[in-house]
């Protein structure tokens, strides 16, 4: 139940995200017989038991440490076995708000991929909503199904292996929202239309990296009677905080003088050292600044949204 409920103390069998650095995290199922070895040292699972989540734990041989983090869908996106391209937090967050998910929502997702987004969806619609997710790759469907069971999500999520573009979703008049992450979402839109709960408003989001896909998706949404067709792009940029020294022109002059002094000293080595050269050596004031990374994510996918209109009695 760790994805749906927080725990304070780590126990046998719990899922812990071992955080070694921002780029290096590993999911561990606590098993007191096991030991986790990495370049920072040896960590015995049994040492984790009884500790609070969030503890900074030193290794057994004192070489380093790691943080024992509580699993969240956000951390899971970092450690998920990358079976497919996954969604990132900017897209995940915006989609969930835009398609109006909350506890109790019933939502359809296709394809499931690595199940990373499914974790975020399940988190938001719990405890009384439901996620129907479809994956046409059989091995992947099996793997995520097992994973949802391990993470206590199987009551919330129904996984089905199915080629939705060919065979539809097999569900009608049920869902409040639809998310399509497919190579050709337009092939699934008319089936998605049937899956919507027919007497209420609904939202659909199609996730495609190419503008040509967006164009075809929009045309299909329009043909199928969806309205309010809108498209967005959402990205996150980091700003790293650091300090820089702020030197002045006087420092620049001084630097030259110091160099000249050194040269002169080399010339007349016999001459006595005077303290002139070092007298003005002072640390400059520091300034807190931020810097954006040299390289960052420039594109994930286009998010095409549309609204499903409730069917009128005379239709």
């Amino acid at each position: 139940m760790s994805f749906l409920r927080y725990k304070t103390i780590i126990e046998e069998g719990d899922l812990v995200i071992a955080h070694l650095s921002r780029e290096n995290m590993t999911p561990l199922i606590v098993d007191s017989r096991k030991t986790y070895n990495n370049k920072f040292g040896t960590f015995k699972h049994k040492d984790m038991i009884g500790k609070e989540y969030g503890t900074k734990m030193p290794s057994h041989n004192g070489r380093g440490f790691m943080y024992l983090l509580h699993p969240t869908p956000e951390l899971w996106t970092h450690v998920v076995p990358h079976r497919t391209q996954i969604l990132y937090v900017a897209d995940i967050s915006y989609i969930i708000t835009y398609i109006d998910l909350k506890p109790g929502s019933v939502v359809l997702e296709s394809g499931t991929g690595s199940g990373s987004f499914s974790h975020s969806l399940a988190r938001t619609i719990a405890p009384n909503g439901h996620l129907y997710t479809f994956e046409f790759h059989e091995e992947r469907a099996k793997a995520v199904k097992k994973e949802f069971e391990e993470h206590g999500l199987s009551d919330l999520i129904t996984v089905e292996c199915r080629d939705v573009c060919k065979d539809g979703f097999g569900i009608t008049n049920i869902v409040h929202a639809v998310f399509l992450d497919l190579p050709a979402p337009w092939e699934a839109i008319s089936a998605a239309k049937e899956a919507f709960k027919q007497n209420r408003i609904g939202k659909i989001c199609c996730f495609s990296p190419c503008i040509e896909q967006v164009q075809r998706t929009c045309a299909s949404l329009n043909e199928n009677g969806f309205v309010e067709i809108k498209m967005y792009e959402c990205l996150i940029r980091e700003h790293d905080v650091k300090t820089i020294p702020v030197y002045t022109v006087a420092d620049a002059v001084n630097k030259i003088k110091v160099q000249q002094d050194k040269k002169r000293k080399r010339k007349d080595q016999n001459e006595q050292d005077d303290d002139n050269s070092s007298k003005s050596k002072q640390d400059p004031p520091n300034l807190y600044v931020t810097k954006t990374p040299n390289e960052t994510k420039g594109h994930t996918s286009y998010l095409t949204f549309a609204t499903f209109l409730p069917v009128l009695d005379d239709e």
Partner: protein
Amino acid sequence: MNKHPKNMSAVSQITEDIIIKSEENQEEREEQDTSLILDNQYIFIQLPSGNIKVVKLQKDTNVSLGKFGTFHSNGIIGRPFGHSYEIYDNYQVKVIKNVAFYEVDETDANNKEILDDPSKQKLSYQEIEKLKKQGLEGQDIIKKMVEGHSAFDQKTEYSKAKYIKRKEAKFSRVFTPINPTLYSVWEYFFSKNPGKIRDMRIDTLSQILSLANVRAYTKMLVVDDTQGLVITGVMERLGGYGIVLGIHDGENHNYDIVRYMNFSKKIHDSLLTLSWQQVFKEEIQAPFNYQDESTLSEKDLKYYLRRKVNYERIRDTREILWRGEFDGLIVASQYQPESILETLMPYVSGSRPIIIYHINKEVLINACVYMKISKKFLNPQITESWLRQYQVLPGRIHPSMSTSGGGGYLLHATHIVINESLPTPIPSYMKQKDTLEELNKSDFCNNNSIDETVKIESLDQNVTSENHLVNSEELQEAENKRIKLE
């Protein structure tokens, strides 16, 4: 202090009770249906001009949309949200089909011959007003105007559609009721007065809710000076299962936005509030004078009970706060973030998210430095969200010509538990120096990679410290900087 009806352990049970109580309700699957237009609820109405009006809908009343007409509320109550309605015969409404934008096709016509000439329109303003008075439907007026436009056929299909749209914005009597969702409520306040919600954009708000892992069965601590926008988002995601404790400015909270969501009682009950003054244990709450209720007159009793409930609510809420173990802290406040962290971090559990929003990055930079020095925070990081909308007309896809310039910044980190009983060595640099510059050169925020040479050195010195866990890159950078300048 004559009577004390609740003992302390009972008070400390309250949080558990709330969570358990909501668990019992899990059976009631069909919550109040938010997809229907209901009596006595707030709705937004999109006008032909594109403006949005907020209305508290009451049955058996007329709703005025200004120059676009007036309709009778019963005409839309009980219907699902989604459709647009046209006013006809004064006060009556009928559903109209949405006109799809893809019906606009590309044609050979171009705007070469088009001149902006008002004389092309044969209908005068007075004539149009007369048509309106006759009770003619908006669509018919526009049709007449198109007929009266001598050069209409010369326009491209695209500009024809644009012309009709422009006329619709003026003469149409079509409106669309919009259900209050986090998105639509945000949209309304952001377009009306972004300053009131501290210029927070919806993508940033969405990220707050994700990063803070807000979901059912959590206990969130929120400092909200956004008129309750953040609180609203948190309440919706809790869905009545859990607690949100809002710390507010002033004596009484000003979470105005919450009410527009038409939350059920269950969701409303998940909101607890305290003022900054009430947060501090030193600030003693004025004791309440319990009286024998049977001796009070009916009028006095009502007043007495209200005061009693209020007193007990504050007392219990304070207990809930001080008991701690919150599942996260969200801050969107005018007050200095460092001081907020100092005050509230003791109440947050380990491995829980801390999210601070501000429209000014500079405020967050200082808070980020504070976090890095304090060691209680893992990976403090400032991020900025970037959102771009595209026009998606067939053959004419491009980003919007004008867009929001910024949606604010987030500083987020994970709360870390430093367990004193563990042999976590105190790094030597922490002992004397506490400026970021010094820290930058060493490991202060979990740069766990080991620089081999440094490691050997420290082993030679036989020192147990974290100094050997130095980020080689940063060390090198600092070194390079020094070399360059000397």
